């Protein structure tokens, strides 16, 4: 095939920064075939590609688990940090503060976030560290062979493991309680919604929490499990049909009056929420709290944008950071002058 033709073809599927989708792929996955985490990885790739985010501007943060391994399987051109079990919120806080010019995307699991890492997660949200925080939620510890995690259904039974007697930790509820400004839930079996919510999260200026039900096909995919594909497909109840529209782009969705809500993000992009069964206002925190409390363990899987507010400033603004990344300061910017030291010495005489 002639180079021209090649160029045409490639440029054809190049995004606005001149990259093809292939430039966003990662190493070959070693996760189980059909694992929900793999489909989430694909949506991350799609969202990044479609939003034309240069991979070099992204850092991939994770803890330990199958979910936390997955950043190795997307965007090899982004730096990644597969840290310690439950501690991703802490490494992310450091990394983000060290370089505010990068966008951090954290991938964690339900064990990683709701068990060992719960306190860090809540404090990260409370500090509003600017990043996308994804929990790939399957109700079990996949990598250690299927023990119950803290998000497992009460009274659920798993063979070899037993029965889980405890109420699940609700990631979204915890995030809201910690005053998160962006809380969404989705389902790996609903790729379109996952992708749109990812785009919205990526345009959010603070901590964007995405709790994505991501079936573990090996250890927790029996139909009666609320973390299974079958259950999700059957009982998913989207709050709305969400579409993210980049800045300055025509909104192309048919305009049936009253049926559309639009939310503008700080970066000028738009979230278009198409109404479904009942009304739901994701900017009303109380409504969000009540909805979660009512639907928790209520036999349906509510998905969509649960809460959005850009009121709270992100941590870098709170800390009044320079725009130059701390990681890129020059030596003059980092080391105060000799005079300043002499002055100080006087103050100790």
């Amino acid at each position: 095939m002639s180079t021209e033709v090649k160029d045409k073809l490639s440029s054809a599927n190049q995004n606005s920064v001149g990259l093809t989708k292939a430039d966003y792929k990662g190493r070959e996955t070693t996760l189980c075939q059909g694992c929900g985490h793999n489909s989430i990885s694909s949506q991350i790739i799609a969202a990044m590609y479609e939003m034309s985010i240069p991979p070099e501007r992204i850092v991939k943060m994770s803890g330990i688990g199958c979910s936390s391994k997955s950043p190795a399987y997307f965007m090899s051109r982004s730096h990644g940090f597969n840290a310690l079990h439950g501690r991703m919120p802490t490494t992310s806080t450091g990394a983000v503060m060290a370089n505010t010019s990068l966008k951090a995307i954290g991938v964690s699991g339900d064990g990683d976030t709701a068990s060992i890492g719960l306190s860090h997660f809540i404090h990260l949200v409370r500090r509003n560290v600017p990043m996308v925080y994804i929990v790939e939620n399957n109700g079990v510890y996949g990598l250690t062979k299927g023990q119950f995690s803290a998000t497992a259904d009460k009274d659920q039974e798993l063979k070899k493991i037993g029965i889980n007697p405890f109420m699940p930790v609700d990631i979204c509820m915890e995030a809201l309680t910690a005053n998160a400004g962006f809380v969404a839930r989705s389902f790996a079996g609903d790729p379109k919604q996952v992708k749109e919510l990812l785009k919205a999260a990526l345009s959010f200026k603070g901590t964007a929490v995405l709790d994505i039900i991501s079936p573990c096909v090996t250890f927790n995919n029996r139909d009666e499990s609320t973390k299974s594909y079958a259950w999700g497909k059957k009982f998913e109840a989207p709050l709305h049909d969400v579409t993210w529209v980049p800045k300055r782009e025509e909104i192309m969705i048919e305009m049936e009056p009253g049926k559309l809500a639009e939310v503008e993000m700080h970066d000028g992009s738009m979230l278009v929420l198409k109404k479904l069964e009942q009304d739901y206002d994701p900017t009303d925190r109380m409504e969000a709290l009540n909805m979660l409390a009512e639907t928790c363990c209520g036999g349906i899987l509510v998905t969509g944008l649960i809460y959005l507010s850009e009121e709270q400033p992100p941590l870098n603004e709170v800390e009044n950071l320079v725009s130059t990344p701390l990681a890129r300061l020059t030596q003059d910017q980092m080391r105060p002058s000799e005079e300043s030291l002499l002055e100080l010495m006087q103050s100790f005489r």
Partner: protein
Amino acid sequence: MAEKQLTLVASNPEDDPEAVINDFSMVVATVNGSGSQTSNMALIRALFSMGIPISGKNLFPSNIQGLPTWFTIRASQEGYTARRETTEILVAMNHATFLEDLEGLVGGGVCFYPDHIAKPDLRDDVVFYPMPVREIIKANDPPRELRDYMSNMVYVGVVSQMIGIEIEAIRGALESHFKGREKPINMNMSIIEDSANWASENLVKEDHYYVQAGDQTDDLILLDGNTAAALGAIYGGLSFTAWYPITPASSLSDALKGYLPRLRRDEEGKQTYAVIQAEDELAAAGMTVGAAWAGARAMTSTSGPGISLMAEFVGLAFFAEIPIVIWDVQRMGPSTGLPTRTSQGDLLFVRFLGHGDTQQIMLLPGNLEECFEFGWRAFDLAERYQTPIFVLSDLDLGMNLWMSAQFRYPDEPMDRGKMLSAEDLDEIGEFARYRDVDGDGIAYRTLPGTDHPKAAYFTRGTGHDDAAVYSERPEHYVENMERIARKLETARVNLPAPVISTQDGARIGLIGFGSSDPAIVEAIDRLKDEGMLVDYLRIRAVPFSDEVPQFIDAHERSYVIEMNTDGQMYQLLQLAAPENALKLSKLNLNNGLPLSARWITESVLKQEGR
């Protein structure tokens, strides 16, 4: 001298044949929370400004209010700054401890006490000066919430008058303390002056302790080690720190928070640094690791319990080769131990911190200049060798007041270590994060955000090949660990070398480190007085440079002096010098108090059978 007759003596040392000048330990016994910091500060700063060598130690309880606290000011003509076991001057403000405090006084010693507390009737061999605290306060009538606090100014005045501290020096001290704010300065000075006047009119000097202005503190500075460490870190380019409150490390972060705003703001007043109070030490360590990984100079500081909690992250930083700096301001362990007592008990734990085969680098500052120097140098070392650098200080060095020469501005440009830019990558055309390109065991790193398709790699605590790809291959694991060992060996010879002082004909060596240096230095003189010459090696880093085993080899016997229970440095040295293991002798004491020259002297003599 219990039988000694007390006679009226001249208030002027020249006329006093028994005069003891600029050489005493003065203990102010109070209860904590009673606000005696200002008064003690006034006394010590005044002495310092009079050119008299001093050191100040605060012995305080792990409690906020109401328990016994002792502030000790040592004045020493010879410039000794170590803790002494005897007290010459006692200011007994705490009736609860009056008795035991009195017992600590030397014969011929002096005791100042408020006349409203009952003086135990013992020690007819010491001089008592009652102080009419209440009257003087009543007369000055300060705001009632300031009463207790102001009462302390009375002893400042009386003591100054009786031993000869210049009132102007006191005023100067208060001026710098209150940063020139007239109101508090005057309020305090008026009480101090009244007290001094009262003393001159009502007390006759019966003791022999005097201070006399000198010039021995010219262009020295007076501060605590945690402040020195914080400044060192700032001049080392610290850009990120995460911490969690813990005694005795908190004041290091306080100092960072205090000085960074002045020193690290850009034109628009934006911060070129971040200080985060974390939710715990695991988070503090994790944030520090994350920031260092992203390329900021990052540090955390803590004490024992925090070190235990940071173990997993330190292991990650060691294995993934992330340059972090950790200050361990040591306190008494194990466990919560004694949070307000000093110790050197974390050596072995820190050296092997993190499960699996880890070997952590430790710097051991022995004075304030080194707190400052290691403060900045730690970052150069961390980034050069891409490994955690621990700096082990302790409560005595970190929280007490020390004289020091002024700090020298870093004499080397920053060493950010081996980093590859996008341009470098264009040239080289390839990148493997953990490849030993130069044969020194140190691999090159790229920072996140480096704008090049080949720049990225996946950092992990799991086994990996030299391209940072997960690998379970036996040879990959072995090669990687061997490279890290090479790297650490490269580092070893470039760490701060030990400081060695010798005397002709000495056949015995003393080995020490950290805050016990002043006591050892003084002990060396005492031993000399006893006719025993010793050499002295002060360790400043672990792993040891070659001078250390050489010193041991060159001496018949070397005493390893340390403040811990298990002789931890002794053990590390045994491992470093197996051929001379038997030439090493333990000399350790771990009771929460800084070592004294007397204890060292007597212990050495005893073990030497003298």
